[in-house]
């Protein structure tokens, strides 16, 4: 299946090149936006540009890793609407792996490289005081972030099982989550911060690990170990996503077309 997909993708070279560049471009623009905002202010939410870029780097690295693997699941609502999901359910393979490989993410390779580069440069730029726990955290944090984003992608796609016309609703949490994690949580306020940062857990993708790496206290009051424990947040998120996905697949009734 994977080989077949590879051949089909590479046979349209011009489109493929455009897709690679487009994919890369969207992530580059996200990072550039942070730089433009810091042109206007030297400190945003209590953080300098280098510190903020560390958070952006973590968020981007986690997001692109995740998007390269499961980003395609966004199309679930199309499959539910058109009935393509029936063919997928008929095959003797898992539903989730098939959806993932239905669209091979070769076009996303450059973007992953860019995301990891931003993260690497941000780590260098901050002159961190490296200790063994920090090294471990620096490696695990983007992976944890990727798994967490993966859970969010699966969750927001599962909405389509119950509500076919959910349209862009899922984007608010997947791409919204990406944008949320690209900035320090201290810039947000009110119930919006509580909901996204703590109830949904986005604070633990980039903000808390970045604080732990920088050795800074949390202006919002969480203890330092919260940063080191942050990658673990992806475990309950994955569990919830798995449960919702399973009940979604069971709940699925074909459109009948």
């Amino acid at each position, binding site marked *: 299946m994977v080989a077949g997909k590879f051949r089909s993708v590479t046979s*349209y070279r011009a489109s493929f090149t455009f897709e690679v560049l487009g994919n890369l471009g969207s992530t580059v623009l996200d990072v550039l936006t942070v730089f433009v905002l810091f042109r206007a*202010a*030297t400190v945003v939410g209590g953080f300098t540009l280098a510190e903020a870029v560390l958070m952006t780097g973590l968020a981007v690295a986690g997001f692109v890793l995740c998007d390269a693997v499961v980003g395609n699941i966004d199309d679930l609502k199309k499959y539910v609407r058109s009935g393509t999901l029936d063919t997928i359910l008929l095959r003797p393979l898992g539903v989730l792996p098939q959806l993932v490989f239905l669209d091979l993410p070769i076009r996303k390779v450059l973007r992953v490289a860019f995301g990891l580069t931003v993260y690497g440069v941000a780590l260098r730029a901050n002159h961190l005081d490296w200790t063994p726990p920090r090294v471990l955290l620096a490696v695990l944090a983007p992976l944890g972030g990727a798994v967490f984003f993966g859970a969010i992608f699966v969750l927001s796609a599962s909405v389509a099982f119950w509500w076919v016309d959910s*349209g*862009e609703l899922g984007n608010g949490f997947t791409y*919204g989550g990406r*944008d949320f994690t690209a900035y320090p949580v201290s810039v947000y306020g009110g119930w*919006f911060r509580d909901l996204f940062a703590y109830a949904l857990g986005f604070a633990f993708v980039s903000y808390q690990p970045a604080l732990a790496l920088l050795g800074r206290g949390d202006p919002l009051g969480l203890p330092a170990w919260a940063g080191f424990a942050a990658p673990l947040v992806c475990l309950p998120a994955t569990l919830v996503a798995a449960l919702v996905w399973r009940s979604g697949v069971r709940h699925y009734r074909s459109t009948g077309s």
Partner: protein
Amino acid sequence: MDGTGARVLTISPGQPFRGSVTTFGALVWSGFRRYATYRQATIAGSCTNIVFGFLRCYVLLAVAAGAAGGRPGGYDSAQLATFVWVGQGLLTVTGIWGWTELADRIRTGDVASDLLRPVPLVSAYLAVDLGRAGHAMLTRFLPPIVAGAIAFPLAVPHRWQTVPLFVISVVLAVVGSFGCRFLVNASAYWLHDARGPLMLWTLGSAVLAGLYFPLRLLPDWAAVTLWVATPLPGLLQTPLDVLVERDPPGRQFALVLLQAVWAAGLLALARLVQRRAERKLVVQGG
């Protein structure tokens, strides 16, 4: 007729102008009704607009709090909040994203049936798009603004001319956006597969129209170049700047004028491209 036939609008032969206005109006109305059928998607889309509104608003307010003088790009906090929330409301009205209908119809060959109709193709598509924008104005424009007004202090216009100028500017933004999208889609006449240009358009249009951040945060030379040399600020940034009264009255008016020049230019270009395409068009498929 026995009462079962479809009602056909007759174009009065003696009054061609009245006829074409009626046709145009009917097409606008059909565009409106077409989008009115997706009610649930409308609600879901508004929720997403509101989430992004909160995100961008908090980030820009934090920038304002950290900026020297508290006025990044010359906006105060209330102006920034208004910029973000009205921007989220306008996003679907100008509809810069996701229109691939013409490119799809060119690729499949369906565009041939559009060409058989007695209405010029550009006008017909423009009419339907105005109907779409009208529907979005009624359904998608207000929810983000209401949500924003509940959570943040917004700027209220002080000048009498601001609201009428804003309305004109929104219409021009819709026309300008249509012109751009038509041209991007029309590249399919030559390329057959317009996915590449469409992708570049999606990528560039949002950021250069001022969705991610107000363009005034860019260095002056970059902002001026964008305004004069591209139609993109006219798709979102200009109506928003007009509404929040970023500039003195004279420049407020000049911005709308510039937007009008671009909108007219784009429509003329769309017609020219369409005429060229018709001359060389080989319809695909059987």
